[in-house]
């Protein structure tokens, strides 16, 4: 049962699924944090909608993780707390702060997915067709969230560029660690 590893590069696929799973898990927690603060505001339904999409993403990666027999990152509890704190913290800066956080994170994730797509295409687009399809779809979803964030005045958030840079640095570190640990 399950997906046959065949001639696929198991280590590469493992890293990809592990880090993507961690990413979607973190994104879930970020939106949960934002909802905790802004859930009953005007922007609540919008955040809820984006959160629902992330839940779908996480569900998909849970399935892939079992199918490809990949181990999850040990850092999940940390991403659990850090994600929630980031979401709630940015939401406390107001609706624009939450949107700025969304823009920063979704931009990081989209770039990350693009890198993975490039890697898989270089390896063998046919062998990794299913995985490529999933990642491409999710990348498009994340870009959509990014654009929604921009539409809702993310750029007018207090200290927007500082916030954005800090968050994206954090994302880079999280990605680096989750691939390996």
């Amino acid at each position: 049962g399950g997906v046959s590893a065949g001639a696929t590069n198991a280590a590469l696929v493992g890293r990809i699924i592990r880090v993507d799973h961690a990413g979607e898990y973190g994104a879930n927690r970020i939106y949960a944090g934002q909802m905790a603060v802004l859930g009953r505001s005007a922007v609540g339904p919008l955040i809820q909608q984006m959160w629902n999409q992330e839940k779908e993403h996480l569900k998909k990666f849970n399935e892939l993780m079992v199918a490809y027999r990949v181990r999850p990152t040990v850092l999940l509890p940390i991403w659990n707390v850090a994600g929630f704190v980031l979401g709630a913290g940015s939401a406390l800066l107001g609706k624009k702060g939450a949107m700025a956080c969304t823009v920063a994170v979704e931009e990081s994730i989209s770039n990350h997915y693009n890198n993975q797509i490039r890697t898989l295409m270089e390896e063998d687009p046919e062998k990794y067709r299913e995985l490529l399809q999933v990642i491409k779809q999710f990348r498009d979803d994340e870009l959509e969230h990014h654009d929604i964030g921009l539409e809702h005045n993310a750029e007018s958030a207090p200290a927007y560029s500082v916030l954005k840079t800090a968050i994206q640095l954090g994302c880079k570190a999280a990605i680096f660690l989750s691939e390996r640990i």
Partner: protein
Amino acid sequence: MEAEAPVRCQLCPPQRALQASAALRRVSDEHKKEPAASSSQHQFDSHPTDQQPEQEPQGPRPSYTGQGGQESEDYESEEQLQHRILTAALEFVPEHGWSAEAIAEGAKTLGLSAAAAGMFHNDGSELVLHFVSQCNTELSELLEQEQKLVQLGETEKKTTEQFLRDALEARLRMLIPYIEKWPQAISILLLPHNIPSSLNLLTSMIDDIWHYAGDQSTDLNWYTRRAVLTGIYNTTELVMIQDTSPDFEDTWRFLENRVADAVNMHNTAKQIKSTGEALVQGLMGAAVTVKNLSGLNQRR
């Protein structure tokens, strides 16, 4: 030749033995350029039935001669040969222990000189690792078979507890023929230069067992389950090497108790978690009520 090489690499199956033989074939191919055109189609296969008009007798397999591109194409890779020697050596372990002597005896039964044992470390490391790897493969096949039978509806699906017990028992029973010398094997596996390999073998075996047990965890449970099962396996192994009861029944009883304890702990933890969650929900409800009563909860 340029066009063939990259394509051949992509289709190379991951098994090291086959990669090794492909690499060796490439070397021997460079010595035989002219008939290459017609045989290029078959070079993707694992063992090409070659077009060479060799008259090699098909009796005992030719031994490793190291003569570049001169052997026939059913030349086996060094790794395959090593596997055969180690498998043959297992028969001599009860007498000679996990050692170079056993390997030398094994080599002799294959018609090779005892000096073939020189291919290996003289502490018996490869022999033990080979045996463990073989046992793990056998276990995986067993579990795969069982899974097929369950899928076809020919056997009942076991409870997780029963499944883990049976899988560990099956795996430990493979040690029985070598149980006298097993303490020596354990100490060999714990040698610093063997630890990466032995740890790898242990973790992949435990992961296999959980996979077939139907584990679908994608959080920290993934780690705790494997850690717990590894602990159970190791302690049961230690009990087994000191067990003198008929058919190791003390060991199996020990195993049964440990697995039951683990399942018990898991259930208790689940109960605690759900009680805790219920408590938290109760407190949140109380807090919201207080906020409502004091008018702090009004939407602005």
